[in-house]
């Protein structure tokens, strides 16, 4: 076997131009497939990352009515939905796949928040002590809430940078007072995301898909929520999962625990109020499927080029068998059995196409990088697809080398020796 491979390499090297031309079909086919697969994988990972963020793995479980998040701004507090009890909170934190969990109140768009005459149009959060860690924020300026502020109904507020920009031009926001529903709150700090994540935006569609909330965030202690909003509204849960893949299961478990105490009177599915996790992975999956279907077609087209390449290999192998008729005859005269001649030519075809496959993989990787530069599409090269490509091209060699090899093995030694 090793001897056969060595001889094949020798043969291939002694006909460099011919070998390259023979491999061309395989090279192009494999290169195209690697480039396409890398682009698909890159795009998929990009979609997933855009939706999930960079490795924070936090699952948001919110109150939904029917298919939409429940809006406290326009609706009154729903019947039968209590504040999440201490024991439920405890049970959620104890879940195996949960690293930490935070319970918060939220309005995605709040009115009646002013700094001087400037109105704020972002989101308002009423948070507990675990929130900043779980959501991945750190204090950039000023300070965080103290333990006392968290439980003592203090009128303090923390802003993120977007909120600061929308309200302040040049003055120092720390210590300034803003007006929330007529109550003065003092700004104590400014937070930023620990691991700032910018979704990759390639189109307007991407913008609407990924840039959900860019009008800024304000945080007040959860206990102070009734000061501004009169009631202890039901809370959402932000749970940090141990890894990205366990996010859907964490979301489901948390939602189940929280729904246990919900007694919604509406059985109509459009009006039913219950906690749901945002199924980011599911969302990613459906977006990925959309992009994958077009690319599957491209892979089929590239496979045709592999088929053509295979036929090219068969053609050249047939020529090579004819050319080497004398050699085959001599080898048979010297006692080489059919099996050995067959093995020699099959090995040669397989080595030839494997080399073509490897060159194709290299060119494909280069092509993928080029695409990512030019079209600013993310690419991810998967080692699995590389291995499959090389094995597949080897198989192409064996399949299409079979007919020429059988022809060689069945040559009659005297005819072969006499061949000029």
């Amino acid at each position, binding site marked *: 076997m090793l*001897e056969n491979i060595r001889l094949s390499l*020798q*043969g291939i090297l*002694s006909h460099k131009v011919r070998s390259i031309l023979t491999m061309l079909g395989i090279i192009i086919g494999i290169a195209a497939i690697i480039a396409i697969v890398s682009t698909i994988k890159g795009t998929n990972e990009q979609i997933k990352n855009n939706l999930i963020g960079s490795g924070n793995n936090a699952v948001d479980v919110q109150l939904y009515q029917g298919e939409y998040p429940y809006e406290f701004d326009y609706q009154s507090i729903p019947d039968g939905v209590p504040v999440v009890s201490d024991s439920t909170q405890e049970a959620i934190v104890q879940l195996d796949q949960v690293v930490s969990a935070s319970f918060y109140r939220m309005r995605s768009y709040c009115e009646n928040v002013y700094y001087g005459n400037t109105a704020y149009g972002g989101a308002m959060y009423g948070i507990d002590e675990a929130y900043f860690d779980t959501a991945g924020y750190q204090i950039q300026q000023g300070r965080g809430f103290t333990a006392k502020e968290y439980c003592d109904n203090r009128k303090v507020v923390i802003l993120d940078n977007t909120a600061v920009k929308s309200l302040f031009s040049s003055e120092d926001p720390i210590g300034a007072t803003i007006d929330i529903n007529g109550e003065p709150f003092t700004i104590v700090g400014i937070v930023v995301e620990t691991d700032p994540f910018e979704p990759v935006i390639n189109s307007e569609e991407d913008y609407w898909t990924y840039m959900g909330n860019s009008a800024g965030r304000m945080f007040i202690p959860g206990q102070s929520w009734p000061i501004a909003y009169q009631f202890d509204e039901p809370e959402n849960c932000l749970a940090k999962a141990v890894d990205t893949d366990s996010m859907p299961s964490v979301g489901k478990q948390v939602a189940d625990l929280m729904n246990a105490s919900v007694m919604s009177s509406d059985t109509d599915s459009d009006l039913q109020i219950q906690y749901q996790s945002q199924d980011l992975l599911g969302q990613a999956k459906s977006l990925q499927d959309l992009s994958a279907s077009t690319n599957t077609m491209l892979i089929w087209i590239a496979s045709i080029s592999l088929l053509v390449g295979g036929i090219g290999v068969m053609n050249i192998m047939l020529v090579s068998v004819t050319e080497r008729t*004398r*050699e085959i005859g*001599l*080898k*048979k*005269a*010297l*006692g*080489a*059995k*059919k099996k*050995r001649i067959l093995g020699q030519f099959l090995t040669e075809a397989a080595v030839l196409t494997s080399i073509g496959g490897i060159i194709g993989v290299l060119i494909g990787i280069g092509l993928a990088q080029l695409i990512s530069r030019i079209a600013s599409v993310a690419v991810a090269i998967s080692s699995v697809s590389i291995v499959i490509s090389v094995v597949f091209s080897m198989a192409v060699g064996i399949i299409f080398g079979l007919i020429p090899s059988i022809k060689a093995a069945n040559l009659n*030694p*005297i005819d072969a*020796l006499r061949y000029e």
Partner: protein
Amino acid sequence: MVIELHDICKSYLQGKEPIPVLHHIELTVEEGEYLAIMGPSGSGKSTLMNIIGLLDQQTSGLYRFDGQEMSKCSDNQLSSIRNQKIGFVFQNFNLLPRQSVLENVSLPLLYGGVRKKERLERAREILTKVGLEDRISFKPTQLSGGQKQRVAIARAMVSHPRLLLADEPTGALDTRSGEQVMDLFQQLNQEGVTIVMITHEKEIAQHARRIVTIRDGRLEQGGFSGTEPEQEVDAS
């Protein structure tokens, strides 16, 4: 005895017509003999040679090699016998041009399933014997005709076969190289190797100890150049 041909006929099909090439050949070759088969081109001597060398099969008749009936052997068995018991030397050497002298010579051992280390050792040994030990890493294209033929003889003898079949071994060589090849044959024969050689040159045939002539597919006469007279049957 090594070879026993009894009533061998061979014909080829040309279209639907069978063209007879060999007629009722009777020939025995004893262990240790040195036989030359002479004949003009087209006389059927190469066909006879191919049958003796197990490269071709007779249309009818009996062929025993080493006491074994050959027409019953499978393709694989014939390959093994060729590999183990017969060495071939051709007019045009038939060396593989891209492989070194050493690799060419060790080829039959590869097919015989000999380990690489032993293969190279034995090939080197036999190349020393034919006087080419300093050429082992050369490619055949870098050698003269005489040297090529000596490589081919080394290849034929590397697995120590009992029979050496030579088809016009000096046909492509000048007189001096031809003589060297003949000296080598002489030496091998003295060591006990049976040699059957095809030639159309009388001077070359004279090196053999017995000469038979073939004409139009019939063995015509037995001539002896050696010392031991042998019964030769001429069938017609």
